[in-house]
Each structure stands twice: as structure tokens, then as C-alpha cells.
């Protein structure tokens, strides 16, 4: 066991792991936001109070979203191995873990975006219609534009839960801070690693939340 808390070896290990965490969280957030945006739009449009209500489309899509959301992440991780191999060529490693992270985040972000979009004041939508706005204009200039701060809040929540999930991704060799905490801190009884990793995660989550709050205030 190391004598002083932050020796050179530990710093290198933790830094590398932190970079892996950033890498996994950044890409899975980006992909899931892009890919989750579309189902969210379809759900918003086809909802009973939407611009093009369609019960069948809404219910089917809603059901799919629910099914994917109810999978425990650790199981999704295993089920998706063949799919991951197809997409990135291998099923183990930091890049590979982006796939299950993204897949689990898409339905989450779809639901969060849908809720954000549907919170738009119906009166504002009606006002836009009264001025002769087309459905597409209402969607972009009213729904999306008015919902951006709320959607941003959803993304902050997503990033924070992805940090948590990325720790589990360590089980498929994803690495990252959580993985170090488990392997060194828990399995090798190196309490100092456990403490350092926890402190980094807490600080990171705090920072993201603060940044999110600041941007929400700025944008709304």
C-alpha cells in the first residue's frame, strides 16, 4: 500500500481513468441526444395533445421506449455484445462501452425531451397557429425553442446518470474512474484509491450540475 495519498503511480492511473470516463460520457451523451431527439419529436407530434395526434404511432413508440428503459443496464450490456461488435468491431474496451451506454440513454433522453417539449404552453402554440404558422415552424420555433432550457436540464441529468453507468461499463473493459474504484479500491483493499475516485466523481457531478444550472438560468 502506498505511503502518501497521491503518489505518482496513482496519479497516472486515476488521470487515465478520468479521461476514459470523460470519453465514454461525452460520446454517449452526444450520440444519445442526437438519436433520442427524433423519437422525442415523433412522440410530441403524435401525442393526444400534439400537432398530428396518432394514437397507434404514439402508443407503439411509447411502448418501445418503455421496454428499453426497463432493462437493467448490466443486462443490456451483455445482450448488446453482438450488436456492439457489429458497430465498433469489438465488444471490449472504452470505445465499445459507448454503444450500450448510448442505447440505454436513447429511450431515457427521448422521454425526457418529450416531457420537456410537451410542457410548452399550449396557448403559445395556439397563438402561433393563429398567425398562420406551419406545423414545422411551430415545432422548431415554438416547441423546441421554448423547451431548450428544460431539455438542457434533462441532458445534465443524463450526463450524471451516465457517469454512474460508465462505472458499470468497466465490466466490459471500459475502464474509467468507477472501474478503478472497484478494481483497486474494493477488490485490492486500497482505500486511498476508493477515496480519491469518490472525491473526483463527487466534484465532477457537482461541477456539471453547477454548469447546468448556470446555463439554464442564462437560457431561460
Amino acid at each position, binding site marked *: 500500500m502506498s505511503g502518501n495519498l497521491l503518489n505518482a503511480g496513482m496519479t497516472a492511473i486515476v488521470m487515465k481513468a478520468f479521461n476514459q470516463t470523460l470519453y465514454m460520457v461525452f460520446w454517449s451523451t452526444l450520440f444519445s441526444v442526437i438519436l433520442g431527439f427524433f423519437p422525442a419529436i415523433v412522440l410530441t407530434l403524435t401525442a393526444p395533445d400534439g400537432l398530428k395526434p396518432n394514437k397507434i404511432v404514439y402508443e407503439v413508440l411509447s411502448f418501445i421506449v418503455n421496454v428499453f428503459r426497463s432493462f437493467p443496464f448490466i443486462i443490456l450490456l451483455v445482450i448488446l455484445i453482438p450488436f456492439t461488435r457489429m458497430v465498433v468491431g469489438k465488444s471490449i474496451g472504452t470505445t465499445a462501452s459507448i454503444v450500450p451506454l448510448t442505447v440505454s440513454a436513447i429511450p431515457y433522453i427521448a422521454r425526457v425531451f418529450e416531457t420537456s417539449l410537451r410542457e410548452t*404552453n399550449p*396557448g*403559445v402554440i*395556439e*397563438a*402561433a*397557429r*393563429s*398567425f*398562420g*404558422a*406551419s406545423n414545422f*415552424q411551430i415545432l422548431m*420555433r*415554438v416547441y423546441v*425553442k*421554448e423547451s*431548450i*432550457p428544460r431539455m438542457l436540464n434533462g441532458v445534465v441529468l443524463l450526463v450524471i446518470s451516465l457517469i454512474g453507468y460508465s462505472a458499470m461499463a468497466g465490466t466490459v473493459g471500459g475502464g474509467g474512474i468507477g472501474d478503478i474504484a472497484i478494481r483497486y479500491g474494493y477488490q485490492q483493499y486500497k482505500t486511498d484509491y476508493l477515496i480519491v475516485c469518490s472525491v473526483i466523481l463527487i466534484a465532477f457531478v457537482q461541477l456539471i450540475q453547477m454548469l447546468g444550472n448556470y446555463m439554464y438560468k442564462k*437560457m*431561460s
Partner: protein
Amino acid sequence: MIQITNVKKSFKNNEVLKDISLEINKGEIFGIIGQSGAGKSTLLRCINGLESYDQGTITVDGVKVDIKDKKKLRLLQKRMGMIFQGFNLLERLDVYQNVALPMKFWGIPTNTPEAKEKITRLIKLVGLEDKMHQKPRELSGGQKQRVAIARALVLDPDFLLCDEATSALDPEITKGILALLHRINEEMGITIIIVTHQMEVVKQICQRVAFLSKGRMLAVGKPEQLFVWPKEKEIRDFLREESDKLPSSGVNLKLFFFGEGNQRPIVTQMSQELHTDFNICWAKLEDFREDVYGSLVLNMDKKDLERACAFLDSKNVTWEIIQN
């Protein structure tokens, strides 16, 4: 001119508009009044195609409002600005951007000098030049409605539709908004249609008014004609008229005053001339735009009734016996 002919509309099995026919002339301020649920907002929304109707026709300057013909409907909607009870401004846009929004829907550039001049002029018209770059949440209710009015005018409409536009505002602010609407009507020649449940609104600015009750149009005419001596029980109930508080003994006689006849000391004259006393049991004076209209209920013995009526006829006073 807006022509509404035999319009009917139902939601599921509930008929909300029952055979409505009326005409709204160019340049007038027209009120549609009634209790909540009377169908007045629905009627307004049918006029600019926010809502469809089942039967009959609505035409605007000869063009039929048809929700299925999207292209034509959009052009009609461009000619009809609308303001709402809840103001319905976009929270994330400032005053200037909110006013400019309808232009964006029409692909009209908003960064040209002419566009900027127009938007600024409208914001000045509604008296918010010092709030140009504030967000709606920094404004009061009355100010928000002013922004909404500027926004409704930005496409140079011929009509301004107001859906309970002052219902969320206190009386003083309401007066200011109505004065602004009146100015817009006079200076810009815009036809204004006002849906409201507030008698005050109709009395202050409407030149003509339609009374709706349970989807039916009960009366249409000048406000002073409609509301000083309403024949319809529904209108009386709406105005919370005298009928429930009058004495049940003797006869109740209602006198109407309008225009310049107001000032005459008719009751004292009648009392002196007929050598009888009358009990004044109810009276009301109403301001209708510039004029004052009033009514008065006298209670008297049955034996005096004939003489009293003869006296009133000789003085050209309109009267009516109130049946209990």
C-alpha cells in the same frame, strides 16, 4: 366584412354553436358576450380557422373560412391578428422578438431597416419603448397584453380578434387596454371583434354586440339597446337584473331613460301631478361609450297604475310593467 350564416358546431354530442348567423361590418368594434361555456370563444376560433365548424358558412370579405384549404386559410389568418386571455407570449423571446415572430412565420426578413422601423413603431404604439429588450416574465399582465397587441398588428391585419383579452387584468389596466384597442380601431381602421364575459368591456368600446347563451345567439344590436331593457330572461340573469329583489305587493313599473332625457325630474313631477307617493325600489345608470342610459323601478298601488302610465306616455318615457 365577416358574414356568419347558420353556423353549427358540436363537440362529440354536445352542440356548442346552434345555428349562429350574424354580420360584422368593416371598421366596427363588435362584441360577443355571454357566460362561460356559451360558445363565444369557439365562435371566434371558427372565424380564423383555429377550429372547424360542422354546418353553415363563415366568409371574410367573400372568402370562405375552410380549415381544409390550408393555403387559403393561412392567407386569411394573416389578415386576422389575435390576442388571448393568457397573452401567449414566447417566454424565451424578448418584447422585440415576440413582436417580430409572426413575420418569421411568413418568411418576411426582420433585419431590414423597414422591418426594424415597423416593429419599433408598433412597440411605441403600445407604449413599451422602454421595455424593448425585456423578457415577458419581467412584465406585468397589462404590459404583456400590450406586447401581444403589437404582435397581432405586425402583419398589417384588417381584423383584430380578442379572446377574453382583458379577463385576467384588473379594471384599471383593462381600461388602458380598451383605450388602446379603441385607438387602433380609429387610427388604423382595423375591425375589432371582442369576445368577453365582462359587461364593462362591451359598454366601454363596442359599437354592436351579440349575446350568446348556451350556443344560441339571443340578441344582436347596440349595447344600449340590448342591455338597458333586455327582454330575454337569459340576458337579465346575466346582468343580474332587478327581478329577484323587487317587492311582491303592488305593481312594479320600470322606466327607461336614454340620451338627453336623463336630466328630467320625471319621478317628482309624476308624484306631484298624481298626488301619490312612489317607492323607488331599484335604479341603474349605465355608461355606454359617451352616453348615459338608465332605468328605474317604481313600486305603486294597482289603482295608480293606469294614471301613471298615461302620465309617462304624455312625457314620452318608455316603460314596462314587470311581471312577477
